[in-house]
């Protein structure tokens, strides 16, 4: 039988080419028609620290990296030690024969100890080539056409020195040859239909989404795991007549975006962890001054510097509640590259329609990991809904009728017309103080009450414009699993498996945390056992949702906080344990 689901981990040290080898393999599998999910596990930019890339490929669309791996290439003894346990029985491990393996007991796996470094040294005088040799080895073991891998390799090395490309091709050949000598049993990997799908990370999808949304101003400050958006837009936004600016810190980067939005451009900033702390003051300002703004936030493990390159869902509290005063905001939570794109698009429309900050809450596991997707959810019918904008004609009327333009005019729906500085006929005044409709400081609190109510009225209709929770399974199931973000894949597979064993499960994936579909969630969870999975230790999601059901007894937390997303089996096991013990 040909294999339809395969997973491989390539583990070594930062800078030793493991990541590159993994990416080439992933891309080759994608071209072969597979859906690929990848999980990068790396410590920092510095060379020499342990790093690895896991890729899982399936002919069906998948979202999770699975439980075990089929194959491991370990370039270092420590890599072998840390990851060998994850290889399933019957799997394959490739290591360098130069390891001292005295204390290593392989499982029931095909274990190949081969001269990777030696060949690299002998033929190329640089050990780094071991990565492509190993790739060739795997190519043979998986029965992937030599040319397939070679084509991707060349694609990835485009622009490099001719000699380097040649050497790499030779290294690949050597890998195939080596495998012929060693490999006892070859896998047969399937081939899928569509080889032209996209292979995107969440950060790339957000950057593309911003461009597609007409965002023409982006200011940010580098911070893992959102920096790639800055790097991408620094490169490509100018092409679209836009501006990307790296600022001196996060405070300025959100404030510049506020300035640009005031001037009339769609503007965004991006950050993570501590960066968002520094942006809270301006978040409060954007809400008060009614400035449309999109903030992209990719979570990492905290608190403080924490584990800056690893995933978490630890900033739920912060994103929902930070900022002094009654700060209005919208919080969207994507799980996939498609949603990262789509929610970015939505975010700009909501921000301008309701004139407030919209936060896209992602996380490292989504933002930096690539996935195969069928399509970028973009089509020509998608509109840039800019909301109530003062046209030049409307502005000119102020000139003729002698009235003064009121940036904060009190309206039934709470939304006033946005004019722009420089428009003939109007003077545009934005204010961070409580203000009169014209934008002056309302020092005597004449308008305070009305202004607060206006800002609250704006919020009433947003619920119609945001993504509803995704429900999966039968409504009759007596157990429901709730989660967000990167938990999607594990939740889906866990529910399927639990249902195979007749546990009666469904899942609910929340895609907008603010506003929250409280009624909907309430009715779906009533009389059910509720399992909430989340990547933090404070049960932030559960605490937040408990406003829906209070101290309801049968709500259970499943938490993980070591910087990695859930695996399906982890959820299954923990759920079974809870059911056995507590229900």
């Amino acid at each position, binding site marked *: 039988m040909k294999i339809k689901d395969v997973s491989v981990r390539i583990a070594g040290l930062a800078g030793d080419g493991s990541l590159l080898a993994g990416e080439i393999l992933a891309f080759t599998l994608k071209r072969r028609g597979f859906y690929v999910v990848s999980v990068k596990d790396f410590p920092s930019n510095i060379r020499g620290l342990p790093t690895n890339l896991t890729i899982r490929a399936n002919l069906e669309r998948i979202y999770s990296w699975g439980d075990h791996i089929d194959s491991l290439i370990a370039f270092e003894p420590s890599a072998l030690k840390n990851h060998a346990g994850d290889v399933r029985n019957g799997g394959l491990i490739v290591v360098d024969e130069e390891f001292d393996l005295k204390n290593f007991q392989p499982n029931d796996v095909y274990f190949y100890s081969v001269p990777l470094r030696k060949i690299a040294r002998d033929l190329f005088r640089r050990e780094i080539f071991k990565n492509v040799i190993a790739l060739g080895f795997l190519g043979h073991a998986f029965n992937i056409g030599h040319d397939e891998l070679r084509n991707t390799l060349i694609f990835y090395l485009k622009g490099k020195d001719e000699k380097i490309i040649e050497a790499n091709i030779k290294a690949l050949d050597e890998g195939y040859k080596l495998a012929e000598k060693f490999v006892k049993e070859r896998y047969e990997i399937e081939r899928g239909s569509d080889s032209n799908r996209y292979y995107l990370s969440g950060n790339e999808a957000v950057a593309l989404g911003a461009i597609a949304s007409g965002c023409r101003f982006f200011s940010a400050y580098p911070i893992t795991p959102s920096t790639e958006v800055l790097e991408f837009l620094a490169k490509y936004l100018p092409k679209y007549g836009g*501006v990307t600016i790296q600022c001196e810190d996060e405070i*300025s980067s959100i404030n510049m975006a506020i*300035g640009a939005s005031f*001037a009339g451009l769609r503007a965004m900033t991006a950050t993570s962890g501590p960066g968002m702390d520094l942006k809270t003051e301006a978040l409060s300002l954007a809400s008060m001054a009614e400035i449309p703004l999109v903030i992209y936030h990719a979570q990492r493990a905290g608190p403080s510097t924490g584990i800056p390159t690893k995933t978490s869902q630890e900033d739920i509290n912060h994103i929902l509640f930070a900022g002094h005063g009654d700060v209005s905001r919208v919080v969207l939570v994507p799980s996939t590259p498609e949603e990262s794109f789509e929610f970015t698009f939505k975010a700009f429309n909501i921000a301008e329609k309701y004139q407030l900050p919209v936060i896209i809450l992602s996380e490292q596991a989504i933002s930096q990991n690539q996935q195969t997707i069928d399509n970028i959810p973009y089509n020509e019918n998608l509109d840039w809904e800019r909301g109530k904008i003062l046209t030049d004609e409307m502005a000119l009327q102020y000139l003729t009728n002698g009235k003064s333009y009121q940036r904060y005019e009190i309206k039934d729906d709470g939304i006033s017309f946005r004019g722009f500085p420089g428009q003939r006929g109007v003077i545009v005044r934005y204010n*961070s103080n409580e203000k009169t409709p014209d934008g002056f*400081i309302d020092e005597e609190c004449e308008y305070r009450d009305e202004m607060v109510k206006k800002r609250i009225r704006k919020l009433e209709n947003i619920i119609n414009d945001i993504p509803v929770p995704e429900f999966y399974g039968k409504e009759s199931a007596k157990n429901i699993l709730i989660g967000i973000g990167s938990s999607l894949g594990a939740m889906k597979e866990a529910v399927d498996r639990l249902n195979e064993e007749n546990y009666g499960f469904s899942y609910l994936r929340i895609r907008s945390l603010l506003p929250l579909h409280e009624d909907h969630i309430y009715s779906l969870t009533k009389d059910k056992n509720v399992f909430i999975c989340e990547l933090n230790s404070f049960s932030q999601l559960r605490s937040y949702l408990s406003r829906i059901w209070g101290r309801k007894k049968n709500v259970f937390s499943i938490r993980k906080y070591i910087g990695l997303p859930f695996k399906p089996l982890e959820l299954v096991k923990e759920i079974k344990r809870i059911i056995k013990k507590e229900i």
Partner: protein
Amino acid sequence: MKRIISLKELAERTAGLASGHRACAGCSFPSIIRMVLGSSDYPVVVSNATGCLEVVSTIYPYSSWPCSWIHVAFENAAAVISGVESAYKALKRRGEIPQDKKIVFIAIGGDGGTYDIGLQALSGALERGHDFLYLLYDNQAYMNTGIQRSSATPFGASTTTSPAGKYLFGKVQDRKEIIEIVAAHRIPYVAQASISHWGDLIKKLRKAYEIEGPKFLSVIAPCVIGWGYKESETVEIARLAVETCFWPLYEIEKGVYRVNYKPKEKLPVKAWLLKQERFSHLNGREDLIEEIQKRVDEKWEKLLRLDGLKVF
């Protein structure tokens, strides 16, 4: 060089300006705002940091600003104006605003919002090279929150957080040399002015409006309440700061220092100090007054040495 606009002309120009404000009687802001706006031939967009000037100039129904503005938080005037300016550049590139439409972008901050909490934002904006004027009105303390020391507060001045008394003789540290710090960013135009010398101030404003790139102008802005003097003396206090060379009028244009005004007779700094309540505890402390005089002299001499030299 543009001609100097006359006071009469200015009065005419600013006839259209709303004259309302709610500053303390005798405050120096009304004239500053008047000159800033009146000196521009172009439309102006302002971003204003939290502080006395922003509060008193934008209270309903007494606003002094007949131009579009955004009142930002305390430390962000330079960052927000950077965003506005860059956005306009993009809009011009995209043809949504005519290429030849000139707009003057001004960020305004007090000394607290400039020397202290806003310094980083200022430095970043200077480094990126935006086309804007940063206008510092320097009343030498945090006035809006009730007279706390800032790093612009002079040595020896008493504030609520550098109180003259048993433990202190007022502020122990010297002021930050903001002009020098800004000049070290090598921007095209840096200048220091005073409301007492309006001709010089207007000339500097008008020069700044014509230069492309970041400009920085620091104006001394005496504060009736915080400095402690009679309402009618504001201009006189500013004048004395200049005449004692505590507050020299000078500029650094494309790297060249120019002292704009050399007092015929340099008055002793004491003449300025003892007119102000905040220095009144120095009365009799000749040692401290001498120390202050020494510092003023050193800086003034250094300035005279630099006069006419190109430093970057």
